[in-house]
């Protein structure tokens, strides 16, 4: 039999339900492999012992009606987990132990999932390479010293290395889709309002959204079905009829109209990405889709808009870290001195940079010129998509303008790092669902992803197109276990 850790979530569930393997065997396999994989630095906090114990308890009293029966799952360390340390990759939350559970993780435990551990991420999810984490860089299992993407870098690394069967990330400007693309895995950002933000450490509240990351499209559909729910505890959670995404999953996408936005052909885009996109268009045609050229004229304004809106919201959200009620406290002579020293020592460089930008654009005299302006341009970007969706059902683009880069390669130049999110950011600004699926490799054999963007609340179509194309593309990661000790 294939190794347990390389099975898909769907296969694991099937085997557990048919009593071919026990939850404890599954938990043991993932714990063992995770123990041997410390070099990846994917975990911030391990929950291995508790996971093994809970898996035994599941086996003693199994419930096979659950959607994730006794499945161990590691999650991004941005989700608050009751009684388990939650750091958001930051020194300021180094010792924070929540007394409550995020709705998304609670949904997973309610369906039989078991917490395996908390995964590394960029500090407060601000980054595209996992290099801003207080807990150190994460290795991409594809090759040594390659970034796993970010901000959900621990998640993508653990997933691609088979340390967890599936995982969840959060995506504010591409933080699920870009790391998925960099590691040859699948990552879905749902429509804004689908998955509750309750208990997720907030970065930019009008953009943040949790979503599944998995080895294939079917697994993402299973996990989305579990985590997507209306939640009164999140004031922007939306009460809409959610599909049974996994049972309604189909490869029949005949006649579906897929738009190709000409503005995504950006200057300086490597040939490989252009080729990948063209190949993707051919695959979509082979699947029975109709290809239509569209225009999203304000695309090039998306990143500048994002870099006003996201830091502004972040500066406001992160005002709560003051060293009083929880988290790090530095000693100071007065209250203000204590605040200033705590925040200076507790936050890393990128987080401080974004708080400064956010504070500046919201400060007296600049609000209209920056924040209000950005909100207006955000409207134009959303209208671009609204108009495109009069003609098409979904949109196909590359996920990222390049493959994974080396650790340290871009960390000194914030703007070049920000450009990584050029294809993913517009989707967050417009609140749309988007998925990244592996679609090929570059000359170094590093994976490249394609992104499918859908209409609001139409995750099903996005998943169906991805499911259909995935079969045609038939991409397999080539991972050598180079990090195993």
């Amino acid at each position, binding site marked *: 039999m294939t190794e347990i850790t390389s099975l898909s979530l769907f296969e694991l569930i099937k085997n557990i339900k048919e009593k071919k393997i026990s939850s404890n065997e599954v938990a043991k396999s993932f714990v063992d492999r995770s123990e041997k994989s410390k070099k990846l630095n994917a975990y911030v906090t391990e929950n291995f012992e508790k996971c093994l114990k809970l898996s035994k308890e599941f086996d003693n009293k199994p419930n096979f009606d659950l959607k994730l029966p006794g499945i161990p799952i590691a999650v991004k360390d941005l989700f608050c987990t009751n009684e388990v340390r939650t750091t958001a990759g930051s020194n300021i939350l180094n010792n924070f132990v929540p*007394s409550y559970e995020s709705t998304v993780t609670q949904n997973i435990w309610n369906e039989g999932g078991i917490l395996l551990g908390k995964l590394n991420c960029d500090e407060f999810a601000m980054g595209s390479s996992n290099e801003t984490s207080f807990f150190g860089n994460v290795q991409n299992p594809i090759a040594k010293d390659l970034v796993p993407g970010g901000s959900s870098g621990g998640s993508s690394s653990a997933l691609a290395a088979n340390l967890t069967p599936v995982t969840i990330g959060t995506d504010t400007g591409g933080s699920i889709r870009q790391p998925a693309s960099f590691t040859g895995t699948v990552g879905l950002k749902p429509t804004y309002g689908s998955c509750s933000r309750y208990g997720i450490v907030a970065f930019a509240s009008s953009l943040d959204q949790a979503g599944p990351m998995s080895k294939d499209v079917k697994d993402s559909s299973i996990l989305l079905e579990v985590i997507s729910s209306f939640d009164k505890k999140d004031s922007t959670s939306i009460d809409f009829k959610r599909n049974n995404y996994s049972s309604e999953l189909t490869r029949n996408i005949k006649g579906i109209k897929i738009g190709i936005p000409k503005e995504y052909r950006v200057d300086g885009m490597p040939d490989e990405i252009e080729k990948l996109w063209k190949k993707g268009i051919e695959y979509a045609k082979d699947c029975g889709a109709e290809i239509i050229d569209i225009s999203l004229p304000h695309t090039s304004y998306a990143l500048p808009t994002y*870099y006003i809106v996201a830091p502004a919201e972040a500066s406001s959200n992160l005002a709560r870290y003051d060293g009083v*009620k929880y988290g790090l406290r530095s000693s100071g002579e007065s*209250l203000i001195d204590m605040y200033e020293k705590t925040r200076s020592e507790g936050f890393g460089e990128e987080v401080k940079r974004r708080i400064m930008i956010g504070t500046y654009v919201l400060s007296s005299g600049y609000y209209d010129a920056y924040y209000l302006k950005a909100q207006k341009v955000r409207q134009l970007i959303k209208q671009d998509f609204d108009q495109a969706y009069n003609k098409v059902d979904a949109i196909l683009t590359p996920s990222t303008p390049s493959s994974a880069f080396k650790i340290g390669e871009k960390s000194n130049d914030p703007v070049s790092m920000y450009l990584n999110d050029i294809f993913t950011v517009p989707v967050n600004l417009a609140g749309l669902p988007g998925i990244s699926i592996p679609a090929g490799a570059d000359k170094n054999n590093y994976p490249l992803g394609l992104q499918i963007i859908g209409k609001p609340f139409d995750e099903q179509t996005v998943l169906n197109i991805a499911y259909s194309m995935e079969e045609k593309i038939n991409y397999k990661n080539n991972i050598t276990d180079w990090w195993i000790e």
Partner: protein
Amino acid sequence: MTIDLKTVKHISKLARISLEEKKAEKLANDMNSIFEFIEKLNELKTENVEPLTSIAETTLRFREDKITSDNIREKILKNSPEKNDDFFVVPKVVE
């Protein structure tokens, strides 16, 4: 537009982040390159565009003003860096 050292220091005061002189200079440089990139938005005329304030087109819901959590005082206080009985402790603020 350029952000000078004085502005950076003012902003750091507003953000309650203490800043060393050397770091302030680097931050000013970074902020200038980021704002140079942001200035692109000025190419667009937006006088007649409604700002998009929320992507979820819902009005905020009301709920009853009712306590729903148990007494979790001890759990909450457990995370505080410094406490005294049932209180959070901060540096003295009254002379």
